[in-house]
């Protein structure tokens, strides 16, 4: 009986602690993505880094602004990426970011 109740408690805790799926970092909608980026950076969440590197290629300049600022705060690097550069000029720094990511 003691063993069973312990198991129930564990199951309850496990389900309560499960991260709710929902809108956030991977969202296409900037109005959800940007607050999620800010939260991840505030929490110093390195797991956000791959998504932020992907966001450097976003068509939305605001997403790119928050992505590079997030990466700078989490890693200390920018690899000369400027969020307002046009796509051709962003290509080089984006490649550097991808290379850096593959080395982590």
């Amino acid at each position, binding site marked *: 009986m003691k063993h069973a109740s312990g198991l129930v408690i564990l199951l309850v805790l496990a389900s309560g602690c499960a991260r709710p799926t929902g809108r956030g970092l991977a969202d296409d909608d900037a109005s959800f993505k940007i607050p999620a980026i800010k939260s991840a950076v505030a929490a110093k969440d390195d797991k956000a880094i791959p998504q932020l590197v992907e966001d450097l290629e976003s068509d939305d300049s605001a997403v790119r602004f928050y992505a590079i600022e997030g990466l700078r705060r989490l890693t200390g690097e920018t690899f000369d990426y400027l969020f307002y550069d046009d796509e051709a000029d962003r290509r080089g*720094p984006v490649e550097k970011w991808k290379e850096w990511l593959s080395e982590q």
Partner: protein
Amino acid sequence: MEGMVERTVTDSQAHFRTRLTSDPAEIAAIRKAVEAFASAHGHGEPAVAEIGLVLNEAIANIIRHAYDGREDQPIEVDVKADPRGMQIELRDWGKGVVPVIKAEKTDPFVPGGLGLPCMKKMMTSLEFVRQPDGMLLKMYRAK
């Protein structure tokens, strides 16, 4: 040479627009981006420093006065360079109150930002354009 980034300034780089939230933590990043943009388009020091300072103060004023300190409101930043200078526009959806342009304060102990007269001195032109739902601040700095 490894580490050198070559940048050709093209027409498509002469303009950018982005959106921020009214969070003071974001001011430094946009200030540095605009300073880098100014530098890349031919503005030297101290112009770059003055442009950055005015942008900083203008955004701080929006946060403090247009949005009463709320940190989750939108601010749109639009920056254009032309051969003669640089234009910065800030759009907010706040209270829409034009700051009163007091006579230049002589008492440095009176708090409240740098003051509009100081900001106007550092830009070639600065004007507030009322919007039905907020304010547009237009600034220009000639080279």
